[in-house]
């Protein structure tokens, strides 16, 4: 086992900030490549005219998932040292719905807003300002909903862990579901008649 490199002490906290910057460059680069610095491109997903959001997101998830699974199986990556955010099921579901509403009202999510701001979009800056204000508003509000905020805690739990399924089986199921989804996405895009998908600015 040699990875995760940081967890094995190969470099320290200060260097990790440079790593963060470098990884961020890759992240922002591919977001923009995909067209996700454009709110119109992102929103097309929710009007079913261009399902690139689904395609990119699930391709990325499957790629990283297969990579992690394979490297763990090879004994190169210690998966137990990769941080899994603890699950708080109800707040995450409610938070997800609220976030989804904010996504389609605002036209962005935090990462894509930053990417869009880099390409000069003023509405992305407005979204960022909203995020700033919303964060402080939530900080003010959170103690009043502290009970809800920490409700349904389940600790660090995965889907295979929770349903008592072999990890590889769930990985396989996700890959099949994604492939089916990609095929379905193609059909939806064709049926809804928009041959002209959002191709550029």
């Amino acid at each position, binding site marked *: 086992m040699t990875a995760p490199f940081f967890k094995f002490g190969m470099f320290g906290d200060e260097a990790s900030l440079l790593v963060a910057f470098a990884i961020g460059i890759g992240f922002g680069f*591919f977001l923009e490549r995909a067209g996700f610095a454009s709110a119109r491109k992102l929103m097309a997903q929710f009007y079913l005219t261009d399902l690139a959001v689904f395609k990119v997101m699930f391709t990325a998830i499957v790629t990283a998932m297969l990579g992690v699974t394979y490297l763990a199986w090879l004994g190169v990556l210690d998966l137990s040292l990769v941080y899994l955010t603890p699950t708080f099921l109800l*707040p995450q579901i409610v938070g997800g719905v609220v976030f989804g509403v904010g996504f389609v009202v605002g036209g962005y999510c935090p990462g894509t807003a930053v990417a869009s*701001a880099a390409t000069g979009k003023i509405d992305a800056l407005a979204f960022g*300002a909203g995020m700033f204000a919303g964060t402080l508003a939530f900080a003010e509000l959170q103690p009043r909903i502290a009970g809800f905020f920490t409700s349904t805690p389940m600790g660090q739990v995965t889907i295979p862990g929770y349903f008592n399924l072999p990890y590889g089986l769930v990985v396989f199921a996700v890959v099949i579901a994604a492939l089916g989804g990609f095929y379905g996405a193609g059909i939806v895009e064709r049926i809804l008649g928009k041959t002209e998908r959002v191709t550029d600015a």
Partner: protein
Amino acid sequence: MSVTTDTVVPLPASDHAEARAAAPYTNPYLAGIGLGLVLLAAFVVMGRGLGASGAFKAFAAWTASFVAPSWAHSREFLGEYLAAGMPHPLKEWLFFEVIGVFAGALISALFARRVRVGFEKGPSVTTLARLGFAFGGGALGAVGAGLARGCTSGQALTGGALLNLGSWAFMLSVFAGGYGIAYFVRRQWT
């Protein structure tokens, strides 16, 4: 490109016009593989995934810490950045990562000739209304990310790849919420 007859040779498009046309977006599957490899690199190098909302949290905490210090320090939600003994709030992995996101997006957009100051909106909505929606959407996004302990990068992408139960629940909820509201704000885009 215009259709020409046999007898008329079209003038070549001026270099200036061609140079100004934005390049088409990358195939989503290829972009997705690239994004997935970046995420994998984060797992392998750092033992953590990507994120974005956390950077806004750190920045908001830092700003509040000198604009309204006693209020800021009383907030449990900002405690991970402002509690005693914590490092400077901006020495946060996600803050540096998000600066990288800006730089990476700018690099990609420069190569693709997609850098253009302006507003993304449909024809039926005024610029002011669009800015209002963007601000409001951002505020809701922050509240949602606060409740969910992350956003589409930190929860859906990162947790998705790790088969995190809460992350998958979050991801499905985001799509549900997004599709649910889409009809009501369609004037922004159509």
